[in-house]
């Protein structure tokens, strides 16, 4: 089973500067653990200590945002492409307060 994973520049220090790496897993969570076994530290940048996807990372399977597919439980198939993009966000008064008001999206 081969899943292509596209890595943003900010995480390429974990992949020896590779823009694309391969991994396997039936779910996104399994895939990230698989990647972490070869690219140590990568999973920790994407998954929080509480075990959820980081609020400011976007992960897509093919053309869909995994937030709508089950987040870390998103099912994966052979040949899927997973794309990771760091969220582009910010603003004048800070996100923490806003997130608390609106509730976490995940």
């Amino acid at each position, binding site marked *: 089973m081969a899943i292509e994973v596209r890595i*943003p*520049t*900010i995480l390429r220090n974990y992949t020896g500067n590779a823009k694309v790496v391969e991994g396997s897993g039936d779910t996104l969570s399994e895939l990230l653990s698989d990647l972490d076994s070869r690219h140590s530290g990568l999973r920790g940048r994407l998954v929080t200590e509480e075990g959820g996807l980081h609020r*400011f990372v*976007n992960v*897509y399977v093919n*053309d869909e*945002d995994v*937030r709508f597919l089950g987040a870390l439980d998103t099912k994966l198939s052979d040949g899927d492409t997973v*794309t990771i*993009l*760091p*969220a*582009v*966000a*910010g*603003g*004048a*008064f*800070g*996100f*923490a307060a*806003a997130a608390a008001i609106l509730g976490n999206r995940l």
Partner: protein
Amino acid sequence: MTSGPQGKLYAVLTIDRAIVDAIFAHARRDHPDEACGVVAGPVGSDRPVRHIPMQNAARSMTFYEFDSMEYLKVWREMDDRDEEAVVIYHSHTATKAYPSRSDASIAGWPEAHYLLVSTRDPAVEEIRSFRIVDGAVTEEPVRIVDATVDPHAVQTYMFGQSPATVDYECSGR
């Protein structure tokens, strides 16, 4: 920091007047909500040439976030065109054009110029640019280039006269 062909670190943002105008037009249109977007350019060129205003999925006066699907679409398109995000911009609508703590901590494209504009005063153009690497903010100058003024324009005039008409032929390059 972007490295150029000789490994130089770019410490200034050079950007066309027309694109600055388009960014302000976008920010004023969305005011008082924050506006956000990208200016793409050829990979490694450090030239922001293609303005892409984007949605603020947060639609807020105090924060912004790229819509996740538009973000994917724009990034794939840039990839197809051998472009990268040279500038990532957003507006502050009641405060100065300086990165907030969120701006600094969330910034995830260390090669990009983070451009901030403020629309707090409709009569003033506040525009500042920053590099944000590992949460550390460094301001850089903004060099606005006016491409409509062509320093290489040459005009030659040829005058032709006949008894009844006067012909003027101006050729400009």
